[in-house]
C-alpha cells in the first residue's frame, strides 16, 4: 500500500536534511521517490517532526539473564501491569517488561530497531525464542566472545585466522550480529574466585591478557569485515578511577586502525568514566574520556545514562555484580555459562539524594555533551542497567535543554555538583543532532544501510512526533519534548501505520537479522571438524544440539558480507 507523509518537518542527518518541510513517499515496505498520489493514503504531518524510526544500540531486552531478572523481581512486574487492548496483549514489568510489552513500548516511542547486546552462544536458542516473541520491532543479538575458551585458545596460539573462522561459524550458526566483549578474561578468572586488575595480567590457565583478547578480536572483526566494530564493555566497570582502563582499552587497538574508520565501540561509558580512588572521592573523569574520543576517530561510545528510579542491573560481568551485591545487600543472581561467560543480576534504586548516583547521572550527560561529534556518541540507558528505555524522552530533554538539567542539578547533593562539570556545560543538542544520536548515527555504526534515514530505498520505518519547532523552543519547553517523544503521533513499520497518537493500532512481527561472513570453504570445513573435538572435550552439549536452525526464526534476515580470509 502507498503512503504519503505530507509537509512534515524532516530531520534526516544521513542525507543532510535539517528541518526541511517535505513529503515522504512510501510504497510497500520501502521509501520511494514517487508514487501515484491519488491512490495513496495521506498522513498530514504539517507542524510535526518526521524522523527515521529509532534505533537502539544497546538494550538488554531478551536472553537468559533478562529472564532470570524477571523471576528475581516479581515486584517489578506487580507494580506495572499492562492490560490487553483490542490489538495488543497484556503484560507486565517496569524495568524488565515482558516480551510483548517491550515491543509495544518501543513502537510507541517511535523506535523500530533494537539490539540486544549480550548473549552467550550456548543460550541462543532461548534468545531467539524470545526475540520471536517481541513484536513491532526489528531486532538482533550481539554474541559474547570475550571469555570464550575456544577464542582464548586460538588467540594464545596465534591462530588468528582459525579464531576468525570460528567466530564466523558461531555468528552464522547462532544468528548473531556483533562481536561483544564483556570484561575480557576477567570473567574466566572470576569463575575461579579471582579478579584481574588492569589489562596486562594473564588469565589463569590460558596465559593470555585482556589486552591481547581485545586486540585479537579487533583483528578478527577486520578479517571478517563485520558491519559493526567490536562492542566492548571493558574491565573494572563501576570502580572509582576506572577511566584509565577505559582509555587504555581504546588506545590498545589504535594501531590496528586505518583511514580513521571506527573499529572499537565502547559501550555504556558512563560506568567507565569514574575518577577518584574510592567511593568517597568519586568524581567525574569525562574530560579525559571526551578528550580522547574527540582526538581519536577510531572510537565510538554510547552514554549508559542513569535515571533516578528503581531498576535492575544485569550484565555478563558477574564479578561486578558480586561487588554490587556486597555494597547494597540486595538479593542477587550469579551464573556460569559453561566455556563461554558468566552473568549476574542485582536490583538497584538510583536515588537523587545519593551522592554517588547523582555523580553517575551527571557523568552520562557530560559524555554526550563533551564529545563534539554526535556521529560517535549514542544515546542509551543500557536498559535496564541505567534505567528503563521508557525514559529516553527524558534523556533527550536533558540533552536539549540546559534548563531541564538545571532543574535536576538543583536537587542533587552539593558535593555531587562540585565533583562534576555539568553545571558549566552550556551545549544543547538540536533535533538534527538528536536524530543522529538516536537513529542515524546508530544505524551507520551498525552498518544497516536501509535504516536510520529517509532516502528512497530505505526501509519504511518512520516516526512522526507531534512537536512544532516553530511554536516551541526545546530548550525552554523541555516538557513538550518529553511529551512528544514519549508518544509518537505515528510510527510506521515496514510501510504500515502501527502506532497512532501513542497507541498501537496494528501489531506486526519484525525481522531478526544476523551476519553471515563468507569465509573460504577450506577454512570453514577444517574449523567445523575441529569443533567436534572441542565440543567433546569442553561442552555438555554436542554441536548438533548447539546450533539454531534458520527455520526457528519467524522472520529470518541474514546480512551477507565477504570476509578477507
Amino acid at each position, binding site marked *: 500500500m502507498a503512503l504519503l507523509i505530507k509537509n512534515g518537518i524532516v530531520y534526516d542527518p544521513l542525507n543532510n536534511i535539517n528541518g526541511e518541510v517535505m513529503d515522504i513517499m512510501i510504497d510497500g515496505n520501502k521509501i520511494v521517490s514517487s508514487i501515484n498520489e491519488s491512490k495513496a493514503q495521506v498522513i498530514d504531518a504539517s507542524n510535526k517532526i518526521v524522523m527515521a524510526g529509532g534505533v537502539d544500540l544497546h538494550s538488554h531486552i531478551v536472553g537468559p539473564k533478562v529472564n532470570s531478572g524477571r523471576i528475581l523481581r516479581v515486584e517489578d512486574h506487580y*507494580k506495572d501491569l499492562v492490560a490487553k487492548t483490542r490489538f495488543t496483549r497484556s503484560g507486565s514489568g517496569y524495568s524488565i517488561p515482558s516480551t510483548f510489552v517491550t515491543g509495544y513500548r518501543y513502537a510507541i516511542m517511535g523506535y523500530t530497531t533494537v539490539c540486544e547486546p549480550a548473549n552467550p552462544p550456548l543460550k541462543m536458542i532461548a534468545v531467539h525464542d524470545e526475540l520471536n516473541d517481541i513484536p513491532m520491532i526489528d531486532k538482533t543479538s550481539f554474541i559474547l566472545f570475550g571469555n570464550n575458551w575456544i577464542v582464548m585458545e586460538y588467540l594464545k596460539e596465534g591462530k588468528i585466522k582459525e579464531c576468525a573462522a570460528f567466530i564466523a561459524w558461531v555468528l552464522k550458526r547462532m544468528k548473531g550480529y556483533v562481536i561483544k566483549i564483556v570484561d575480557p578474561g576477567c570473567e574466566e578468572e572470576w569463575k575461579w574466585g579471582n579478579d584481574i586488575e588492569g589489562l596486562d595480567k594473564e588469565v589463569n590457565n590460558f596465559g593470555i591478557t585482556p589486552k591481547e583478547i581485545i586486540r585479537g578480536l579487533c583483528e578478527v572483526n577486520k578479517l571478517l569485515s563485520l558491519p559493526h566494530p567490536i562492542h566492548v564493555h571493558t574491565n573494572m566497570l563501576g570502580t572509582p578511577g576506572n577511566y584509565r582502563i577505559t582509555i587504555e582499552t581504546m588506545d590498545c587497538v589504535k594501531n590496528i586502525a586505518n583511514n580513521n574508520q571506527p573499529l572499537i565501540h565502547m559501550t555504556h561509558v558512563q560506568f567507565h568514566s569514574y575518577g577518584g580512588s574510592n567511593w568517597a572521592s568519586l568524581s567525574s573523569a569525562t574530560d579525559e574520556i571526551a578528550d580522547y574520543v574527540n582526538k581519536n576517530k577510531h572510537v565510538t561510545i554510547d552514554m549508559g545514562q542513569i535515571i533516578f528510579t528503581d531498576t535492575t542491573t544485569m550484565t555478563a560481568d558477574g564479578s561486578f555484580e558480586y561487588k554490587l551485591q556486597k555494597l547494597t545487600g540486595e538479593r542477587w543472581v550469579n551464573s556460569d555459562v559453561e566455556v563461554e561467560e558468566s552473568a549476574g543480576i542485582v536490583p538497584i534504586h538510583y536515588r537523587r539524594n545519593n551522592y554517588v548516583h547523582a555523580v553517575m547521572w551527571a557523568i552520562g550527560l557530560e559524555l554526550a555533551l563533551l564529545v563534539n561529534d554526535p556521529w560517535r556518541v549514542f544515546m542509551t540507558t543500557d536498559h535496564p542497567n541505567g534505567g528503563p528505555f521508557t525514559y529516553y524522552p527524558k534523556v533527550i530533554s536533558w540533552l536539549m535543554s540546559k534548563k531541564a538539567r538545571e532543574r535536576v542539578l538543583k536537587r542533587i547533593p552539593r558535593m555531587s555538583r562540585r565533583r562534576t562539570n555539568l553545571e558549566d556545560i552550556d551545549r544543547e543538542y538540536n533535533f538534527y543532532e538528536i536524530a543522529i544520536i538516536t537513529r542515524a548515527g546508530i544505524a551507520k555504526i551498525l552498518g544497516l544501510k536501509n535504516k536510520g534515514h529517509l532516502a528512497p530505498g530505505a526501509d519504511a520505518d518512520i516516526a512522526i512526533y507531534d512537536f512544532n519547532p516553530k511554536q516551541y523552543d526545546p530548550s525552554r519547553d523541555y516538557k513538550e519534548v518529553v511529551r512528544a517523544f514519549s508518544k509518537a503521533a505515528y510510527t510506521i513499520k515496514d510501510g504500515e501505520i502501527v502506532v497512532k497518537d501513542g497507541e498501537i493500532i496494528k501489531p506486526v512481527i519484525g525481522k531478526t537479522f544476523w551476519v553471515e561472513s563468507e569465509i573460504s570453504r577450506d577454512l570453514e570445513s577444517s574449523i567445523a571438524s575441529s569443533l567436534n573435538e572441542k565440543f567433546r572435550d569442553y561442552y555438555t552439549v554436542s554441536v548438533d544440539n548447539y546450533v539454531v536452525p534458520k527455520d526457528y526464526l519467524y522472520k529470518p534476515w541474514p546480512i551477507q558480507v565477504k570476509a578477507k580470509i
Partner: protein
Amino acid sequence: MAEIILTLKHSLKVPLDASIISPDNFAGKSINEISSLKLWRGNKQITLGEVFDIKGEAGSNANETVITINGDLSKARRIGKGMSNGKIVINGSAGLYLGEDIRGGVITVNGDVGSWAGVGAKGGLIEIMGNAGDFLASSYRGARSGMEGGMIIVHGNAANEVGGWMKNGTIKIMGNAGIFVGANMQGGSILVSNDCGVRAGAGMRGGRIVILGYIPSILPSFRIEEIRASVKVNGDKISGPFYLFNGDFAEGGKGNLFINVTKNPHLKRYEQYIP
C-alpha cells in the same frame, strides 16, 4: 457525609479488580458516572453498574464520601487502592490486597479479608472484624517496602507473615497470629493479643513486636535483655511483665521483641542469661 451503597448483583465467579472502588474515585461523580466506571472481571472489561446495584450519592470530595458495599467480595481484589480520605464499609468478606497503598481514610470490613490486606499502607485505618489472610500489611513478594504508616486492627486471627518489611505504623491483632510475625521488620509496632507461631521477628532490624499470648520458641539469633513491667504500643500502656529480647542479630539486632512472661513458662530458662 454522603453515602453511596453498592450491592453485589450476583455472586462473583471469577476475580474482579475492584481498585476503582475508592472515595477518591467516586467523589464528585453522579450515580450514572459511577456506574459507568470501568473495571476488569477476569479478562473482560465491564462497568461497575454491571456488577453492583448502586444507590445513594457521592460527596463532593473524598472526605465526605462513605462507600458501603454489601455482598461476598472475597473474589474482589484491591478495594480502596490508594485511597486518601473518606470511608469504605464492607458488609461481607473482601479479597486480596484490600486497601493496597492506602494513604488515609478508613476501611471497615465486617467479615474476613484475603491475603496482603494493607500492602504498602502509608496511612489511614483498616479495621477487620473477622480474620485476615497471609502477608497482612506486608510487602509484595520481592519488594523491600512494607507498611509505612497508619493503623491496621484485626479483631480475629491473622495468618502468616504479618507486617513483613514494615517500616512504620501499628498493627494490632486481637486473636492469634501465624508464623513469621514481623519478618524483616524495620520499624513500627505489632501487637499480637493472643498466641502466635514460631520465628517471630526473623530478620528484624528495628521496631517492636509485643506478644501477649503463647509463643512456642524464640529464634536463636535473639538475645534476652531484661524483664519489663509494661510496654507502650501506639501510646497505650500494656502491663506485663514481659521478657525483652533484642534481635535479629543475623541482621544487626536493633529490633525489640516483648514476650509475656506469665503465658510462657517454658521460656524461664532465658532468665539466667539476663545481663
